[in-house]
């Protein structure tokens, strides 16, 4: 046995597939019992120094990307490829073979087979092709000296189903590899009114340049009565070289994609800063200020001074803020404003409207994954392949008329590669149909 033959036999065996799947299943369990991605200290504290060291040798803290787990996945891929290369050619032969060239004796050896002997004239009067068509079979035929053979088949491509399933697994792995090597995953917190040109990678917290700028214009959040977040969304703008390219609202489950990079609304953080907009009603002049908590600011042109002197909070969320406001030399006024609401101030002869909103930072998860569509394609093909492999079968029917002997013969036979019981019924129905046609 050559080395190549040994290699081929090993990798084309289903035994290897079963072993590899068992190994993958069993080892995967380990990663769910040992917490993944924790610090060295965590493992030392929870498992002891010796065990923690053992974990490190086998990379158990990140086991799904360890050399041995990836090795098992590689083994599975090789196994899938070699198995398919080994078995598919003979399947292709069956799909594309000329079934009319079959030796007549083989017809009688099929799982479903029946023979009739009729009088010559009766047999030649029958439109056999028509009979088959009436039963839903579209035959091709071939005539020889004293015989004629009809053949029809359904669902021959279903034999590819299992190969599609296996190929889909390879596609999914390919997509994952593409994503791993030419993609990234990271996150960024952008306070309202600020922008960023980079994000921070999950793996090592290194900054990654986006190649463009992303700005958070505003963040809005609603809460349920019990304090849980109900809905939150951000208005984001993409800028290139200072030019605004696009603006979109994103919320959880509804991300923004630009140049292959996708921004997902994933979290938020309430700051102890406020966004205060002051409008002088008479002139309509309005200005937005970013105001730290308990810090006084002024709008010099309008001779206004203001500040947030207190706030009522639930967790990190401001419910109401206490605004201190003084116009010129007039006495100051103090008013509680609900978050993201506004109040009117009258100072002397002038009226002002002030709105106060807690400033939030929007928490974005950022990902670039060029392989994701390859993975999705693999998933679709897998479902298609599973359906073909389990719910469709390859059914074949032969009808052979032989005029050579004194007693002309008609042979009908058929086979199916799956769901043979159901095919048996179909075959019997066809048999009955032909018998009735002859007896008429």
């Amino acid at each position, binding site marked *: 046995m050559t080395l190549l033959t040994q290699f081929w036999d090993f990798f084309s065996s289903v035994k290897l597939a*079963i072993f590899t799947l068992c190994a993958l299943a069993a080892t995967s369990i380990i990663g769910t019992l040992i917490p993944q991605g924790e610090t060295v200290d965590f493992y030392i504290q929870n498992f002891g120094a010796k065990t923690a060291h053992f974990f490190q040798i086998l990379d158990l803290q990140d086991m799904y990307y360890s050399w041995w787990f990836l090795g098992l996945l590689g083994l599975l891929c090789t196994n899938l490829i070699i198995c398919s290369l080994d078995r598919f050619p003979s399947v292709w032969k069956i799909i594309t073979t000329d079934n009319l060239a079959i030796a007549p004796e083989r017809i009688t050896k099929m799982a479903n087979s029946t023979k009739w002997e009729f009088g010559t004239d009766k047999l030649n009067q029958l439109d056999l092709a028509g009979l088959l068509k009436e039963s839903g079979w579209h035959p091709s035929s071939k005539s020889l000296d004293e015989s004629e053979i009809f053949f029809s088949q359904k669902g021959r491509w279903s034999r590819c189903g299992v190969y599609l399933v296996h190929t889909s697994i390879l596609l999914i792995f390919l997509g994952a590899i593409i994503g791993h090597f030419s993609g990234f995953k990271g996150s960024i917190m952008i306070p309202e009114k600020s922008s960023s040109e980079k994000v921070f990678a999950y793996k090592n917290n290194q900054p990654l340049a986006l190649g463009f700028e992303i700005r958070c214009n505003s963040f809005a959040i609603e809460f349920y009565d019990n304090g849980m977040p109900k809905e939150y969304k951000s208005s984001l703008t993409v800028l290139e070289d200072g030019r605004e390219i696009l603006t979109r609202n994103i919320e959880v489950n509804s991300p923004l994609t630009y140049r292959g990079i996708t921004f997902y609304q994933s979290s938020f953080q309430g700051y102890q800063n406020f966004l205060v907009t002051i409008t002088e009603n008479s002139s309509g002049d309005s200005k937005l200020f970013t105001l730290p908590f308990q810090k006084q600011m002024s709008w010099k042109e309008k001779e206004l001074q203001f500040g947030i002197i207190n706030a009522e909070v639930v967790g990190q969320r401001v419910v109401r803020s206490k605004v201190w406001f003084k116009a010129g030399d007039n006495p100051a006024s103090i008013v509680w404003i609900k978050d993201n609401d506004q109040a009117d101030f009258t100072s002397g002869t002038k009226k002002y409207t002030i709105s106060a909103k807690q400033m939030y930072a929007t928490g974005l998860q950022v990902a670039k994954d060029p392989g994701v569509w390859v993975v999705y394609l693999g998933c679709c093909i897998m479902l298609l392949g599973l359906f073909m492999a389990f719910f469709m079968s390859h059914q074949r029917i032969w009808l052979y008329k032989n005029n050579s002997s004194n007693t002309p013969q008609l042979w009908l036979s058929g086979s199916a590669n799956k769901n043979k019981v159901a095919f048996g019924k179909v075959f019997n129905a066809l048999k009955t149909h032909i018998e009735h046609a002859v007896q008429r």
Partner: protein
Amino acid sequence: MDSSQLLGITTFTYMFSTVLYIAILVFRTPKLGGIATVFTALAWCIQTAGIALRWIESYRQGIGHAPLTNMYESVVFFSWTIILFYLFIEWKFKTKIIGAFAVPFAFLAMAYASFSTDLTKAINPLVPALQSNWLIAHVVTCFVGYAAFAVAAALGIMYLLKNTASETTGPAAGFSSRFPAPAIIDDIIHKTMVFGFIWLSGGIITGAIWANSAWGTYWSWDPKETWSLITWFFYAIILHTRYTRGWSGTKIALLAIFGFASVLFTYYGVNFLLSGLHSYGSG
């Protein structure tokens, strides 16, 4: 009538269904079979009404969502899918005796949902991550798969009883003589596992697509995801041993039962014993 009353009734109706199906085994009246089926179908309709009502009630409370979002709702839905799938199997294979093994799974699930103190029955609002149409696709595909695996396990138990009993005589042999032939049970086990496998594949895929649109990663080796993959591997292995090693009979029946243990850990064990992104499902 509100949803919790209808769903409370369901626990008892499924218990009575179980009794009816077991009665078919004990007494030999063919009429009982028809009664059992009709009663179970009616009980399923009541449960359907209960689930639909809960859906409507959530909208009335201003936190409208499909009743598939916490452990209580998912256990109720699991029990609903088991009965639906079982009735389909009963119709397709014309064997009512399977009910004595499959319906108890649905009854036990409802009993757990109704009486366990671990589960909150209140309709809770959804956090933003769960507010997505993928929720319905993902939960439904997974549970249709789980239900098929539950019925396969029930059939596995039935097969083992039939197989051991046929070598003995006495009352045990008497019951199992009413079961279909082992080869037939084996065939149905295979078909239910194939069905479950396809739906589980769909469940994992819809979960991955949803995860990608919510978090930017279609796979993060989170314990729930990993265990669903372990279950998927398990049934893939069973399908291969059957097709290519010719395994059938007792071996497959045992594997069907162990496979369901993996399903239960994926569904339930992960939420309560391990932690991760899927912690929504706990209580």
